[in-house]
């Protein structure tokens, strides 16, 4: 069936855009929330900076200065895409580091006790556990936010069954000690888009009230926008965020590079010390090729934003129409490319392995959580039972797909689900 659907144009397009992917020509990849391939245009843009333009941007001679200028220009491209300036960005080695860096904005002197450095084992000496948490974070956040928030004694804010933040719970949990609220722009397991402008509205109200009462504690909003950069039109001023995390690896750029966009009045502390790059906040020789690639990827994402959204929304409709015997989990407020399904009574991990044999790649949840054998805290938070969590499958559409594949994959998934049901009933 797959061979019958073999489409020369589609293959040619795939080879053109993702030349190296020819090895997986029959693959149908539906896990774009986990990783995206670097597109050829991005790869081409990066290449000179590995060899010809290899210079250390901090060096004194002209060729190095040219590299430094290209690097700054690339940062400018990334920053402009979200309505910021190059100088607002701190380049990091990925979104996890950017999220961790955002938490250094908390003022630990004065209002709080001093902070002993976090340990890998999760039990910090003594930070803030016995007092009002100065950090609030959404309970469905990615581990790169959850774990650091826990280190600082943060408190989780609940989500509604739709996956959207419970604003009442947020209001109830904000105290005069609250300094930082972290809410991702779009969730990495459900694609749920959070109402950040509403949250920043609440924050503004509270800041006005604090001012009236003479309380000087800062109140910042951080958002991890890793999943959303190529699917939503993002503007930091409009969203009202103080700190925004970006990720290259989810938008067809290279892995291992990300950025934290920091508004002017936020003071951060370095997590990496050294030569003072990135305004002293993230030392280390600049990862020039990756930032050039990241910028190219952002440029392409902006260019294709509207077209991609329409395309993914229509493919999502096709899948929902042609798939059988499922329950849709992310019904509303979702990114267009997320399709999260629940197959009752079925172990979705078995489906992942059955689909793998047909070169169809999907996941049961966040890749890192699944590999640790941990049940998804996100699906739990929206009220799914253990059995429903076990039956949940996440499909995330992306640029490696075409419509032909979407029709095909619906049939393939229906097929393996039927096989599995037969095995269970036989």
């Amino acid at each position: 069936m797959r061979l019958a659907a073999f489409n020369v144009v589609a293959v040619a397009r795939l080879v053109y855009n993702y030349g190296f992917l020819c090895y997986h020509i029959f693959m149908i990849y539906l896990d774009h929330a986990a990783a995206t391939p670097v597109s050829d245009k991005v790869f081409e843009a990066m290449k000179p900076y590995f060899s010809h333009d290899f210079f250390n941007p901090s060096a004194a001679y002209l060729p190095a200065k040219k590299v430094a200028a290209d690097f700054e220009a690339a940062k400018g491209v990334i920053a402009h895409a979200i309505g910021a300036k190059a100088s607002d960005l701190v380049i990091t080695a990925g979104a996890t580091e950017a999220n961790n860096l955002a938490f250094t904005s908390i003022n630990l002197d004065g209002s709080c006790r001093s902070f002993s450095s976090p340990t890998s084992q999760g039990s910090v000496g003594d930070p803030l556990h016995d007092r009002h948490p100065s950090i609030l974070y959404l309970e469905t956040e990615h581990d790169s936010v959850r774990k650091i928030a826990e280190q600082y004694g943060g408190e989780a804010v609940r989500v509604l069954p739709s996956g959207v933040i419970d604003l009442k719970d947020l209001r109830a949990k904000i105290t005069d000690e609250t300094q930082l609220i972290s809410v991702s722009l779009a969730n990495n397991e459900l694609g749920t888009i959070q109402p950040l402008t509403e949250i920043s509205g609440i924050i503004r109200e509270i800041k006005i009230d604090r001012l009236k009462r003479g309380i000087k504690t800062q109140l910042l909003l951080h958002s991890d926008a890793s999943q959303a950069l190529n699917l939503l039109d993002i503007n930091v001023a409009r969203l009202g965020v103080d700190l925004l995390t970006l990720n290259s690896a989810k938008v067809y750029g290279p892995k291992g590079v990300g950025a934290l966009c920091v508004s002017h009045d936020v003071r951060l502390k370095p997590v990496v010390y050294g030569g003072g790059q990135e305004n002293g906040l993230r030392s280390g020789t600049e990862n020039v090729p990756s930032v050039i690639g990241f910028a190219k990827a952002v440029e392409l994402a902006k260019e294709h934003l509207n077209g991609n959204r329409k395309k993914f929304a229509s493919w999502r409709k096709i899948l929902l129409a042609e798939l059988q015997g499922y329950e849709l989990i992310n019904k509303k407020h979702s990114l267009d490319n997320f399709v999260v399904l629940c197959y009752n009574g079925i172990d979705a991990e078995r489906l992942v392995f059955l689909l793998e044999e047909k070169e169809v790649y999907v996941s049961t949840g966040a890749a890192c959580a699944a590999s640790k054998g941990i049940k998804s805290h996100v699906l739990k938070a929206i009220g799914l039972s253990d059995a429903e969590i076990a039956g949940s499958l996440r499909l995330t559409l992306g640029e490696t797909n075409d419509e032909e594949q979407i029709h095909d994959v619906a049939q393939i998934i229906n097929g393996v689900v039927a096989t599995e049901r037969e095995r269970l009933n036989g």
Partner: protein
Amino acid sequence: MGKKVFVGMSGGVDSSVSALLLKEQGYDVTGVYMKNWSRDLPGMKCPWAEDLADAKRVAVKLGIPFEVWDFEEAYRDKVVEYMLREFKAGNTPNPDIMCNQEIKFKLFYEKAMEHGADFIATGHYARAGAGPSLMRAVDENKDQTYFLYRISNEALGHTLFPIGEMLKPDVKKLAEKNGLHNAYKKESMGVCFVGEVGMKDFLKEYIDIEPGEIREIETEKVLGVHEGAVFYTIGQRHGLYISGVKGEINDGLPYYVVKKDLVKNIVYVSKNLNDKHIWTKELKLKDIVMRTEPTKHILVRLRHRAPLIPATLVDDTLYFEQEIKRPAAGQSAVFYDGEVCLGGGIIL
């Protein structure tokens, strides 16, 4: 449907092929991953989740049901506690032997029986003969009866060892032929603290360890500093941290651990390969398990894959014809008569 078998699947090639063979032989097979340990150690990721995924992938490929049975609590109580106790006493315990005795061929066996099993199966290289008797594997190089000598006859009587008659290379070939992805997987024990490196990290987490002196036994001269006497095994030659010792003793010959004084926390070493602490003609044992009627003249294996050596067993003492290098206290001496494993005991 054939007889009902629960096969322990670790994610490795041996248990995967075992499941494959049982399926082909017409058994009603259920794969089970025994979750015994999942805690990461500092700087070391416990491989359990990956092993579990590997096992499950094979089960799905074979089209058999797959379950995860959680024995973590029992493993901690029965295996980990025993290990810590033994190390604290200065011995070198063998967690695999204890795990087979207490978990795989006890709790797993019992639970399988409760679930209506006719048999359990594992990917061990061993054979179950009539009687039942525990017999060495056909692949002499892989034989694992050393780890199995303490399992109960009741469990053994209900155990299938599907690869006991096969050679390891053939097991790998069969996995490849059937597209089992773990044909090339590195052998793992599923618990991160097995192996020399892991054990050290593990002990550091659970036992208070003090650095102490390393002394030459003949001269009482302090040669260096050790990290904690429990880490050292009699006969050990590596990891002594006494390189660069200058002067008359630096003749290039290696030092061996010959004695541990746990009270004073001193590790004694010697270059003298003939040191009386290293060699012996007799070994006293405890906790002897006899699987069959004791015979006097037997073959003994003192380590997994070590050669079989003739000995005489009188009460709880083994007498050897020639001097042997003394094995670490806490390890096992396992007895054989030809292919049959007669039992064994723990070396004092």
